[in-house]
């Protein structure tokens, strides 16, 4: 079975090539969408086969090399795939959720001008993402890493006529570049450091085997892992590189669901999981990761409290949940992090698709009434429960799951993370506290979202309110499947204390067990403690839900009063704590000023298309250099002669 591993990324690639080349001519949406969906479904089937084979197999790590890519001296790099429990789980999530979202897109993107373009990009994204998780060495992973970034960029800017979409794409691109820089620096430093020990390799299995050559807790390991973590921050939208993800909601909703919730943004978590051997050796980095993760979880949750755009709430929620995953990685709960990655993929994809269904309905209504209102603003919704029953129920189930109510999937994964952040020897009670508070906020803002959208009075413009239909089958089927998964997905990871077998822990043990044992990472505490922590976090969540119910269903005037009594706080939260403005003020404007100052003598107006601070300075230097290009022959000749004099002078004086 493992010999067919290459088919998994191959099918979406075929879909991409087909739709990219012929899509424009075909014009038939059923064919284009059908091919796109079929291809990813085929790779889902192959993934299932491989997953099943791996379950049966006693040997858990398999590498398959398709072809030699390059050999540079002792360094041998292959087009090789690595199937182990971690990547097996990831390919199942990617192809499974991917299939559902492709199916959903057929209905959602119906009638868009670039229908074929959309499916081509989506297939290309799946291909890249599968390469990312399946690659057996860092370079193949980097191919995928760049590929998903590119697709994300293309898809965020899908509605390129909208200026905001173009800007959002640029922002995502810039931030991802910073992340890529981290990744490359980490990779090259690791390559160099291991090379100094006599092992020139970038193969993951070999890196894991030879990680012990580096000094545990030493400077090199810390630098390497911190660089990798910077890369992960960029991809997975952690503080301070998270601002691009909410803006990325300019893309079509299926893109938000697939790329910016379920798969691509978890690449950073996956990467840390893939290199767990190295990370476990660097306690300082782990601490940084845990703190950054916890802070992101809390911080993004506070912003989520006050947003009115349905997709933005979900975006901040995604950032916050990714923070949980990083928290888990940071305290050594690798399994729990990956577990949460999986459950999050289910419920968040369902939530995004549900919001898409709502937006679709609202859009339909407004279109019918020839209105130009914002179909994403929750203040225009309300009472949609009866109009869109399937959407409502699936949405509700996923919301319960994300809120961490017992018996739903989110509960098991989140609770495992919280327990580790308290009990692990790499954890701290403060981390737990932050995580628990953020969990309460999550419950609050998610139910606020549900109540504002589906309950109460319908606040839609009267001309449109009766023309909001339930979405079609291609949209509701994925919703139902994902909601079911969001409910039961957690049962593979019921912790021992609740009488479960924690299958996922055993399944992933071949990947994480060695590093955890080697570095003596463990969570310890009495059962009573574990129970009480569980009870507290559930209690906080229930309280959050109750509060939301009081504020948005029982007494809808309360929020306004609250806003009136704390106007400053509310405004700060509503404006996302002014983070974008802060970045603008601290980096962009200052750099702008420095740039202007440095090149004041020159014409600054060429410096256009500002993206961010670094770009400003760099562009400033560039524009300055440009003025060395006077076009006058003398200056050019002068440049040459000065070069001669400097070089010759250097030799004469130097010798």
């Amino acid at each position, binding site marked *: 079975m493992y010999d067919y591993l290459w088919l998994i990324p191959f099918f979406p690639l075929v879909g991409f090539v087909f739709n990219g080349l012929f899509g424009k001519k075909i014009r038939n949406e059923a064919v284009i969408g059908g091919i796109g969906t079929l291809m990813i479904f085929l790779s889902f089937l192959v993934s299932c086969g491989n997953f099943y084979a791996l379950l049966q197999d006693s040997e858990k790590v398999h590498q398959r090399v398709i072809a030699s890519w*390059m050999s540079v001296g002792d360094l041998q790099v292959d087009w090789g795939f690595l199937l182990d429990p971690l990547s097996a789980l990831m390919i199942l999530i990617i192809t499974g959720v991917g299939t559902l979202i492709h199916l959903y897109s057929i209905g959602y993107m119906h009638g868009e001008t670039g229908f074929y373009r959309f499916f081509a990009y989506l297939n290309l994204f799946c291909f890249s993402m599968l390469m990312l998780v399946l690659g057996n060495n860092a370079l193949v992973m980097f191919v995928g890493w760049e590929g998903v970034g590119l697709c994300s960029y293309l898809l965020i800017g899908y509605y390129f006529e909208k200026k905001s979409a173009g800007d959002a794409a640029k922002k995502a691109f810039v931030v991802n570049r910073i992340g890529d820089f981290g990744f*490359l620096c980490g990779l090259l430093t690791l390559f160099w450091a291991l090379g100094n020990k006599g092992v020139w390799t970038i193969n993951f299995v070999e890196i894991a085997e030879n990680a012990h050559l580096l000094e545990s807790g030493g400077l090199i390991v810390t630098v390497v892992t911190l660089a990798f973590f910077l890369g992960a921050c960029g991809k997975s939208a952690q503080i301070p590189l998270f601002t691009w993800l909410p803006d990325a909601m300019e893309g079509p909703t299926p893109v938000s669901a697939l790329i910016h919730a379920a798969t691509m943004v978890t690449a950073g978590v996956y990467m840390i999981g893939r290199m767990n051997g190295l990370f476990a050796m660097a306690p300082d980095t782990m601490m940084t990761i845990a703190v950054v993760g916890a802070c992101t979880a809390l911080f993004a949750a506070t912003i989520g409290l006050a947003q009115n755009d349905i997709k933005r709430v979900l975006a901040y929620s995604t950032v916050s949940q990714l923070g949980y995953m990083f928290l888990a990685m940071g305290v050594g709960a690798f399994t729990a992090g990956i577990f949460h990655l999986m459950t999050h993929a289910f419920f968040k994809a369902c939530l995004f698709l549900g919001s898409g269904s709502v937006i679709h309905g609202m859009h339909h209504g407004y279109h019918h009434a020839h209105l130009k209102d914002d179909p994403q603003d929750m203040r225009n919704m309300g009472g949609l429960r009866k109009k869109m029953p399937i959407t409502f129920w699936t949405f509700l189930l996923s919301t319960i799951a994300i809120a961490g109510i017992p018996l739903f999937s989110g509960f098991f994964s989140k609770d495992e993370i919280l327990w580790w952040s308290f009990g692990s020897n790499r954890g701290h009670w403060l981390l737990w506290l932050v995580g628990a508070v953020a969990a309460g906020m999550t419950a609050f803002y998610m139910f606020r979202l549900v109540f504002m959208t589906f309950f109460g009075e319908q606040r839609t413009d009267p001309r449109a309110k009766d023309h909001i239909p339930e979405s079609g089958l291609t949209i509701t089927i994925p919703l139902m499947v994902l909601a079911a998964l969001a409910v039961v997905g957690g049962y593979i990871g019921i912790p021992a204390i609740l009488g479960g077998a924690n299958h996922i822990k055993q399944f992933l043990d071949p990947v994480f067990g060695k590093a955890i044992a080697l570095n003596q990472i463990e969570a310890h505490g009495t059962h009573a403690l574990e129970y009480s922590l569980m009870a507290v976090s559930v209690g906080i969540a229930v309280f959050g839900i109750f509060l939301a119910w009081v504020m948005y269903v029982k007494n809808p005037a309360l929020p306004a009063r609250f806003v009136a009594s704390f106007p400053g706080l509310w405004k700060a939260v509503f404006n996302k704590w002014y983070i974008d403005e802060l970045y603008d003020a601290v980096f962009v404007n200052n750099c702008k000023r420095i740039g202007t100052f440095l090149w004041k003598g020159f014409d600054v107006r060429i410096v256009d298309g500002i993206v961010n601070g670094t770009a400003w300075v760099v562009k400033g230097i560039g*524009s300055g250099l440009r003025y060395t*290009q006077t076009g006058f022959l003398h200056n*050019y000749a002068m440049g040459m002669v000065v070069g001669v004099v400097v070089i010759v002078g250097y030799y004469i004086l130097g010798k």
Partner: protein
Amino acid sequence: MSALELQSLLPQIILALGATTVLMLGAWYPSRKWILGGVVIALFAALSAGLMTPAVPEVGNLYSTGSYARFFVVLWSLLGALSLLLSLRYAEIHDLPGSEYCALILFAICGMSLLSAATSLIGLFLGLEAFTLVFYILIAFKREDSRGAEAGLKYLVMGAVATGFLAFGISLIYAASGSFHLPEAFAGLEQAGGMRPLGLAGWALMLVAIGFKVSLAPFHLWTPDVYQGAPAPVTGLLATGSKGAVFASLVPLFAALGPLKADLEQVLWLLAALSLLAGTFAALPQRNLKRMLAYSSVVHMGYLMIGLLVGGSEAHRALLFYLISYAFATLAAFGVLTSFSRVDDEPQEYADFRGLGYLHPRRSSLLAACLLSLAGIPPLVGFFAKFGIIAAALKGGYPGLAVIAVLAALTSLYYYLAPIVVLFMQQRDARQLRRGCRHEYFVLALCFSAILLLGVYPAPLLDLLTGILP
């Protein structure tokens, strides 16, 4: 010169004689079909270089006929043939005289082939001047275009000064060692484990001239002007062949230098770093594709310089691989520009490309692919080439340069993406440009498959390069 030596130099002779014949016959039978004849001659030269076994290893103590030299004869002939094919329609539209154009390109290929084969400083000088002279003419080939004349004059004046430096540098080395032939010329420079001051001064002057030819900072200032003023297919050959041939000749030159290279290291380091930085910074604010490619070529030359600096067969192999990958992507980029150009003008400002991706999707995508390959986006070949150079720098003990190289590579995406954004992500107010013709599509498809296939499966080329490296 014996018959055996003539036979060994056959590919270059085919090129030179072929060019002369085309030039002569063209006077009686003027036709643009000569360009196709030129393609045949170039291919013929490539075939003879590829298949023939030379009788003697070195001709007249000037030119090598080893596998390294012959590989580059094949490469430059192929590049020349491709740019001739690209020029076919272009020459028609701009009413360029076919036989002269064809003959000049063939002479240029001949010069490049001689340069890459040089085993003596005389051979080096001759080869270099042979194709530089041809480029002076080709750059200003559109007679009514005053920009072309300006670019040609600028290149000529700067080039002539560089020639002076080169000749003076060679004379100093000659003074120190009493020979032009390669290992001996440098062997005579040694003194107490280091290089004699006379040799150092000679090398400094030579480096300046070489830096000018391949446009290393700070000798790169002519590059954007000349790129902009020259006809697009000529720029394509100038950017790939002429720079590539110089680097191809530098590899054996530095190999012959041996341990004396240590004395040049700081300067080489500085040249590489400066080129990477200056090119990157200057390319960022550009809104003209040709000028942007000019600055970006400065950056690429910086990468090649790293390969040269690190030395050793591995780094040299990475250098040659980079050179080839750069050549194909650049040639294709200028090929797209060629195929877009019309009678009155060549589109090169970004404003001209706005929304073009929807009017001409195939060529626009191809241009985007070339730019992405130059930027080093996997799995296109540019990524692998960059990785090879950076890995070589790390292994060779130049982490500082490696960091600069990584930074330059990351920043490069900004300026390479700017035209792509314009092509695909802006309002479509572009006007329809010229339709491409078959020859152009053929060349473009060939280059594209090269940058894709070499990126995915570079092993055969790498093996070949390992085999030919001295």
